[in-house]
């Protein structure tokens, strides 16, 4: 059940990325190019997705527990620290260079453009390094 619904959720997410244009780096980069070839379409993706989630989350939270797991596990961190800001800035620069954020990069794997085939493994290495950095004493101290 978990595997089936996990797959189905990913499939719906991926189809949403494709239909919305979010899976096409050309469209993402034009969305970010406010002073050039600006294409504001992706604001509608963010708007549609977060409004749907805003309403849907509140319905989902009426359940005592999620349908397939024993407990809800929702992020509780509220601190705005150096790690959050540095991480978001580094992510933003990478997003601006490649036009891929993590979801669309996975989806694009199937189309197998050479740029994607190098992007995804490097992203996985980046996640590994980033998670080590996040828990390192240096990052904690500087935050």
């Amino acid at each position, binding site marked *: 059940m*978990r595997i089936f*619904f*996990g*797959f189905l959720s*990913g*499939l719906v*997410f*991926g189809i*949403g*990325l*494709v*239909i*919305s*244009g979010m899976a096409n780096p*050309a469209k993402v980069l*034009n969305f970010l*190019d406010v002073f050039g070839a600006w294409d504001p*379409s992706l604001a*509608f*993706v*963010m708007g*549609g*997705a*977060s409004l749907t*989630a*805003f309403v*849907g*989350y509140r319905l*989902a939270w009426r359940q005592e527990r999620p349908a397939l797991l024993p407990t809800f596990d929702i*992020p509780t961190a*509220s601190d705005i620290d150096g790690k*959050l*800001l*540095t*991480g*978001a800035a*580094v*992510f*933003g*620069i*990478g*997003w*601006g260079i*490649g*036009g*891929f*954020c*993590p*979801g669309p990069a996975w989806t*694009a794997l*199937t189309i197998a453009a050479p*740029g994607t085939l*190098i*992007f995804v493994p*490097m*992203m*996985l290495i980046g*996640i*590994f*390094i980033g998670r080590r950095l996040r828990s390192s004493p240096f990052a904690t101290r500087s935050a």
Partner: protein
Amino acid sequence: MLPITQTDFTPWASLGGGILIGLSTVMVMALFGRVTGIIGITAGAANADDRGWRIAFIAGLIAAPLLWLVATGAMPQQAVSDNLPGMAIAGLMVGLGTALGSGCTSGHGICGLARLSARSLVAVITFMVFAAGTVFVLRHVIGGAV
């Protein structure tokens, strides 16, 4: 960096696709009680106790263009830069930044905003400003040199 090509303004397709993405995050919340942060799911697929559904979720993401192919007869339209060193650096920064900042476009953007998290709002504004700034520099200051 890709050569600059105009793309069509597609508010309805983008809104529709956005609603589908939102529905997926609601499914994950209702079924698994988790936010749909792609980076969190990816990291969790490697080491979480209940990794099965996360691996299946990523498999679903990867399978989506195939469903699109079956439904429409063509692969989704896409233009990816073939500057391989540039894409390698981009991938590394996206992975590193989202892991360090605990979230990406979906985790902070969609799910965080839906939870009305101030922390996520700050993250979204930060990565948007840096992403737009990067595109500005690459396209209009350096001008396609990268």
